[in-house]
Structures are given as structure tokens and as C-alpha cells.
């Protein structure tokens, strides 16, 4: 039984240091895994310390609850496919936020028979934790359902949406203020939680599938902030710090994703995707240029005579499950002494860094994975850029056409390569519905068809040379 405040504080401090180290070690894939282990040790210390605190009872409930949670967690973590990572992260955001909201509700309930007995700080943090945690819980479940395609990925909009949302927020804020002002009946907090849950649903529903990277990052930040607020409820330093670290991480990723998609976060949240580019398609001038189709045999020759090849993967590559074939092709080329690298745009995939994980799973060594700023200066020296399932992130209109909806978005400068081969199903425009002039450039050829089939044919053609 630990009851000495200094001992408790020191043990929690060890946990805090472990968490910071875990994040610090993520600065390089070389020691990132070790960092996760250190974080795990920190968590065990925090859990062990809390269990050993004087006054903790209900052991059976703790053990059974923990066991159920652990089994669910392990099975989920082992079974999940890497393409489904965004859903998994959304789900974890949700359960974390839900747990934070429940903990603060329980604290409120403990005091509920004694109205006015909850200290000012405590009730403010209870309100914040319940509010943010519930929004995160409901929002994450909707994000999960969208990513898992349980409900349509299209933005769901209806007239008067903003008025309804505004009313919900106003109601939640009013309930929160009432609780803080001393109306400490339980119904106040229940009302607050119900309204916050409704808002969580309403705020994610209108956001389209393409914007999910921003939303997941934001919900990640929310859950962190909810955990931090819970730390104030319980007067617990480890929750305050750990929650805030997550809050900072989620916020930073949200801003990064917004920047990489050329959208302000407000625009993502309040302007449903698909509305801004309405009408831009008609503005295109048909200058008589047409895309040239090529064959796997021609591309094989092109690749074999190259010195440097850059593969530009998009989400289409993962959808076609062609990562392993691409790695095989890259290895074949490397055996011929050709320099191969992968250019990864920050929003390739469905969440921050998703494409890197998908390629790492296919055994692509991480030193071949290049970030946008690192690879862009290398395109002029690149003999062949192989674009597989990527579209908007290689559209030169982002640099040159102020009228384009993606103007200003940072892109991979694929058009500066000596030659470009685009693997694509058809000439249909990409996710954002914008025409891509890269396909019409003189150095570009198109290899039409399913990415996986095309690459398999390409491998055979390279081997046959």
C-alpha cells in the first residue's frame, strides 16, 4: 500500500519521463521500437502504482474489466490490416475519449448527493473532460464507420446544418455553465454528455472521406486534451502531462495535414469537400494535346536504361494491394544497378504517414522512403518517375494555375523528371475531380489498367530483357 505522496509523485514522474522518451525515440525508425517499449514500461509503472494506492478496492471488477479490455485490445491489434490502420486509430481515439468522459462523470456522481460541494477547479475540469471526451468518442465512432465504409464516405449535408449544430453547442455550453455555477444535479452532466455526443456525430458526418486524415488527427488531439482535463479532475500529474503530449501531437498533425492538403482546418470542418471545386471542370481549355498510351514492354526498356527511378505511390497502390509487386520490381531494377527511391507525399494514404507503413509492410527498406522536401530537388536528375495510383499530389496545376482548386498545395515535382510513366485505370480525374495536365506533357506516357496487373506484366517484361 502506497500512501506517501512523495513516493507516488516520484513513480508517476518516472512514467512521465518514459512517455517523453518514447516520443523522443520516434525521431528515427532505428530506435523507435525501443521507444515504444520504454513507453510500455512507463505505463506499467503508472498502473502498478495506482493499483497499490491505499484505499483501492473492488479488485474483482478491476481485474475482470482489465482482462476484457486487454483481450479486445490484443486481438484487435493483431488482426487489423495495415490498410485499416486509420479505422483502428479512430477507434482507439474513441475509446480513450469515452473512458475520460466516464471517469469525470463518475467523479461528478460521487459528489452529486452533496450539491455545491465540488470545488471550482474540479467542476470546471469535469465539464471540460466530459465535453471533449464525449465529442471525441462519438466523432471517432462516426469516423470509424466512414473509414470502414459502414456508412457512405460522401459528405452528409442537410439545410440548416450549421443552425442545428450551433443550437447543440449552445445547449452543451449552457449545461456546462449551469454545472459550474452550482446546479450540481446529475441530470446537468447527463444532458451535457448527451449534447456533446450529438455534436460529435454532427461534426464528423458532413466531412468527406478525403478529409479523414485531418479529422483523425483532430480527434487524436481531442482525446489527449480530454485525458489532460481528467488529470485536473483527479489532481494527477501523469494524466495532465501525458494527455497534453497527445494534445500537442494531434494538433501538430492536424495543422500539417491541413497544409499538405492546401486546406485550412476551418475549411475542412465547415466546408464539405466537393463544394469548392464545383464548376472548375468547365474552365479547362482543350489545347488539342492528348495522353499517349504505352505498353509494359516499352516501360521495361525505359526502366532498364535508366540510372535513377523514382516510384510515386498513391492510395490506389494500396487499394490494388500491389505493394509487394512494386518492391519486387524495385529489387529487380536495383540488381541492374539502378538507383530506386520512393517519393511519399504527406497525404498519400488515408492518415498521416500511412503510405510509409504500407510500404514497410511490403519489406521496402525505410532508407528508400523519401519525404517530399527531400525528393523534390532530385526529380530533374531522375530518368523515370513511375506514378502508381497517385493523381492530385503530382498535378502541376498546384504550382502554375491560380484558378485551380488545388493551387498552392505542395506537390511532388514529378513533371521535372526526364520521363514520366503514369499507371492508371483510365483517364478519369482523381479524388478531387480535377484534370491533370501532367498526363498530357510530352515526357509522359500512360500505362492503363489495374496497378497490380500492370506491375506484374512489367516485372515479366523486365526479366525478359
Amino acid at each position, binding site marked *: 500500500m502506497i500512501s506517501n505522496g512523495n513516493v507516488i509523485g516520484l513513480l508517476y514522474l518516472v512514467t512521465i519521463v518514459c512517455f517523453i522518451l518514447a*516520443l523522443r525515440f520516434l525521431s528515427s525508425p532505428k530506435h523507435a521500437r525501443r521507444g515504444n517499449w520504454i513507453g510500455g514500461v512507463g505505463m506499467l509503472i503508472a498502473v502498478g502504482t495506482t493499483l497499490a494506492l491505499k484505499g483501492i478496492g473492488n479488485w474483482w*471488477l478491476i481485474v475482470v*474489466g482489465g482482462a476484457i479490455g486487454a483481450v479486445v485490445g490484443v486481438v484487435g491489434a493483431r488482426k487489423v490490416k495495415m490498410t485499416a490502420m486509420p479505422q483502428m486509430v479512430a477507434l*482507439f481515439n474513441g475509446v*480513450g475519449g469515452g473512458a*475520460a468522459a466516464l471517469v469525470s462523470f463518475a467523479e461528478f*456522481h460521487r459528489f452529486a448527493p452533496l450539491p455545491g460541494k465540488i470545488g471550482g477547479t474540479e467542476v470546471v475540469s469535469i465539464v471540460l473532460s466530459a465535453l471533449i471526451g464525449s465529442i471525441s468518442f462519438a466523432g471517432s465512432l462516426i469516423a470509424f464507420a466512414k473509414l470502414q465504409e459502414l456508412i457512405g464516405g460522401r459528405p452528409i449535408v442537410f439545410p440548416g446544418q450549421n443552425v442545428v449544430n450551433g443550437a447543440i453547442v449552445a445547449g452543451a455550453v449552457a449545461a456546462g455553465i449551469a454545472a459550474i455555477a452550482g446546479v450540481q444535479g446529475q441530470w446537468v452532466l447527463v444532458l451535457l454528455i448527451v449534447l456533446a455526443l450529438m455534436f460529435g456525430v454532427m461534426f464528423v458526418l458532413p466531412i468527406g472521406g478525403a478529409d479523414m486524415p485531418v479529422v483523425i488527427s483532430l480527434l*487524436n488531439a481531442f482525446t489527449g486534451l480530454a485525458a489532460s482535463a481528467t488529470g485536473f479532475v483527479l489532481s494527477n500529474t501523469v*494524466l495532465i502531462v*501525458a494527455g497534453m503530449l497527445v494534445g500537442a501531437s494531434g494538433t501538430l498533425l492536424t495543422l500539417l495535414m491541413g497544409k499538405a492538403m492546401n486546406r485550412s482546418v476551418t475549411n475542412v470542418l465547415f466546408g464539405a469537400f466537393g463544394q469548392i471545386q464545383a464548376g472548375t471542370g468547365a474552365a479547362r481549355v482543350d489545347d488539342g494535346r492528348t495522353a499517349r498510351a504505352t505498353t509494359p514492354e516499352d516501360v521495361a526498356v525505359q526502366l532498364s536504361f535508366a540510372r535513377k527511378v523514382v516510384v510515386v505511390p498513391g492510395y490506389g497502390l494500396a487499394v490494388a494491394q500491389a505493394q509487394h509487386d512494386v518492391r519486387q520490381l524495385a529489387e529487380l531494377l536495383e540488381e541492374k544497378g539502378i538507383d530506386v527511391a520512393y517519393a511519399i507525399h504527406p497525404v498519400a494514404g488515408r492518415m498521416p504517414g500511412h503510405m510509409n507503413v504500407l510500404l514497410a509492410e511490403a519489406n521496402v527498406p525505410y532508407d528508400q522512403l523519401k519525404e517530399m522536401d527531400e525528393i523534390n530537388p532530385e526529380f530533374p536528375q531522375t530518368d523515370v518517375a513511375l506514378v502508381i495510383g497517385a493523381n492530385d499530389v503530382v498535378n502541376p496545376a498546384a504550382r502554375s494555375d491560380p484558378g485551380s482548386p488545388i493551387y498552392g498545395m505542395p506537390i511532388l515535382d514529378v513533371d521535372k523528371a526526364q520521363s514520366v510513366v503514369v499507371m492508371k485505370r483510365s483517364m478519369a480525374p482523381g479524388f478531387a475531380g480535377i484534370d491533370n495536365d501532367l498526363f498530357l506533357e510530352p515526357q509522359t506516357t500512360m500505362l492503363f489498367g489495374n496497378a497490380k496487373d500492370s506491375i506484374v506484366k512489367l516485372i515479366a517484361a523486365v526479366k525478359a530483357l
Partner: protein
Amino acid sequence: MTHALPGLHVPLVIELTILALAIFLGFEVISKVPAMLHTPLMSGTNFIHGIVIVGAILVLGVADDTTLKVVGFVAMVLATANVVGGWFVTDRMLEMFKRRPSPSTGPKKDETPKP
């Protein structure tokens, strides 16, 4: 009957000081994480916000009526799933990130033993 939970009781000003420092530290540390590792970063921070498990243990550990027991129990299940799942999925992902085997440390199957 006392209403304080077991554990630490830190003055509010100190808590706010710690919070302010954590904000700056968080941004500093996270900005050093390369884009390549942003997915493991998200699942790793998923794991870290699982620290609400401490809160779940505290409220369940002192629960003395049915409502508290039910709420605390659900919180315990959710928080444990968060901690355990977040950790395992991060470990699984980070294990996949491998360097290109350099020629000197590559496969040794065709290495002949020296006489």
C-alpha cells in the same frame, strides 16, 4: 467520510505550470518525428492517452454504489483496450520498418568457412 480520491493532490498553480511546460515540450518533441513515422506516432499517442486507465482504476477502486461500479467498470474496459491495443499495434508497425541490408552484413549463406 472523506471525498478525496487516493493518490496525489497537487496545488492548481503547480498543475497549470506543469501543463504549460508540457505544451511546449510536446510541440518540441513531436516536431522532431519524421513524416515517415506519423502513423506509428498516432498509434503511439493513442497508447499514451490510454493513461486514463489510471483514472479508471481510481474511480472503480473507490466505487461504493452500483452506478459508480458500472461506469467505472466500462471506463476500465475501454481504457485497458486503449492501452493494450495501442501498444501492440504500434509495436507491430515499428517492427516492419527495416533498413536496407548493407552488403557487409547481408545474408551469409554463400560465405565459405576459412581454412
